[in-house]
């Protein structure tokens, strides 16, 4: 536990001692504003809720989170500091968890800084605040899902650009699998169970049900086990490729 904390502290400190944190947060908040007010039409809808914000969040995360996760391991491998890290008395699991938790907490900070949106709808009307809260919980879980993919991909390459592109593509597949046109493609020939399985892999399916205010155990289990699977893969990838 002490080791996870040490890695976590170093990583988190690193975000704020370099411009990464500030650039990420500023861009994230700007894009949130644009998506919510212009594209989502928060005012025109005439409803006091944050649906427009939560609708666009998966797409925003699709590009911003891989940008955050791409350096997690690729940078260690490129600079050779992975040799230092892996010869310190810590396990790979501890290193993976420490780094992941730091990045996840950081996305949590960025998400929390969107609170002016919440203040706005509360000023304008009487929104259903528990629904908004559950939306935020869902968004945080989803960010963890994106990050776990990105962290695993980042461990497989020394090149951050490759890590970014591949993480975006894989994340995109996990959004896409909930879309009707993808499911239609399978519907004609695959058994219903397979179609349901594909659909249930999607971030969108689970995220949208949480944003509607229904925190179902199965959605929570989905995100937690999704993160666990990708992090387990992450550990295996590092074990295999750390010295390449």
């Amino acid at each position, binding site marked *: 536990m*002490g*080791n996870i*904390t*040490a*890695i976590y*502290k*170093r990583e988190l*400190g*690193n975000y704020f*001692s*370099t411009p990464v944190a500030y650039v990420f947060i500023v861009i994230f908040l700007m894009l949130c504003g644009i998506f919510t007010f212009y594209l989502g039409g928060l005012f025109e809808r005439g409803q006091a809720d944050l649906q427009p914000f939560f609708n666009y969040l998966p797409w925003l995360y699709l590009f911003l989170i891989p940008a955050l996760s791409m350096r997690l391991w690729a940078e260690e491998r490129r*600079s*050779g*500091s992975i*040799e*230092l890290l*892996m*010869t*310190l*008395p*810590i*396990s790979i699991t501890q290193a993976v968890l420490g780094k992941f938790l730091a990045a996840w907490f950081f996305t949590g900070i960025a998400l929390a800084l969107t609170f002016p949106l919440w203040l706005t709808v509360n000023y304008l009307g009487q929104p259903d605040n528990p629904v908004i809260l559950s939306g935020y919980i869902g968004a945080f879980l989803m960010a963890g899902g994106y990050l776990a993919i990105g962290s695993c991909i980042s461990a497989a390459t020394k090149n951050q650009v490759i890590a970014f592109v591949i993480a975006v593509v894989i994340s995109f597949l996990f959004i896409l699998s909930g879309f009707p046109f993808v499911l239609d493609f399978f519907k004609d020939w695959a058994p219903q169970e397979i179609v349901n399985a594909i659909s249930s892999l999607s971030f969108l399916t689970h995220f949208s049900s949480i944003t509607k205010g229904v925190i179902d155990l199965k959605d929570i289990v989905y995100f937690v086990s999704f993160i666990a699977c990708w992090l387990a893969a992450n550990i295996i990838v590092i074990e295999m490729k*750390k*010295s390449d």
Partner: protein
Amino acid sequence: MIEVQNLSKRFDTFQAVDDISFSVNKGEVLGFLGPNGAGKSTTMKMITGFLSISGGSVSVCGADVKKSPIDVKKSIGYLPEGAPAYGDMTVKSFLSFIADVRGFHGSEKEKRINNAIEKANLESVTYKTIDTLSKGFKRRVGLAQAILHDPPVLIMDEPTDGLDPNQKHEVRLLIKEMSKDKAIIISTHILEEVDAICDRAMIIANGKVKFDGTPKELENMSVNHNSVLLTLDGYPSLNVEKLLGEVEGVDRVELANSESEKVTYRIFPEDNALIESAVGHLVQQEGWVVDAMSVEKGRLEDVFRQLTVGDQ
């Protein structure tokens, strides 16, 4: 403290390390010598648990590197080749991270960090970002990181590479000073360094141990060791070579150089015997005019080449 038995490493079809065995005791400094790509770094990486082992075993302070890698890593201070560090951290915060991972807290942590900074002479750059430091300082940051927890075993891959002569001297002093109560392995291709700090030298080439002994023994292996160089004025007699060859203990005589009025002979002894006085005696007896006479020490370079070039 370090026991290596029949250690091997295979990368696909390439045998990087081939059946190496040795042990290092407390108070000993072992120097790995060898051409680039000989397997020195690979061996070190296996001892420190960074690379997996293809065959054989490594144990450090009684812990097996395969079964309890964390225990092994706890007792080792390791300076990897090129001294990698987290470039965008300051020296102080980097060492603070290392101290956290090594399990130090509070005043003990502070003490350890300051001690490492002092030993590695980093006082002037404590709050500078590592990326902005010169190569010599970066190497010393790596050194500070390795000695922070005062480990019983130190493994350093080319600790003086890229340092200027003064810094090299300082690092060597530091290693010597620490060697009393630690088992140390360093790798280098600077041969004088072996002479200066190592109690034992090991030459590795093509993944195999070619030599394992003291630097003195290494010198003795040189064909030139204890040979006498004799320069005479003019040609005093036609049978100089014959006379020199008859001196007791002399193996053979070679004409090393002859120009205008001077002629130089190299006289090789049998079994590294000391033949200087016997040769001197002959010179006196014959009344030759001596321009210069010297005894050669074996040069490590010669031995290094003898041992590593032949079969590549």
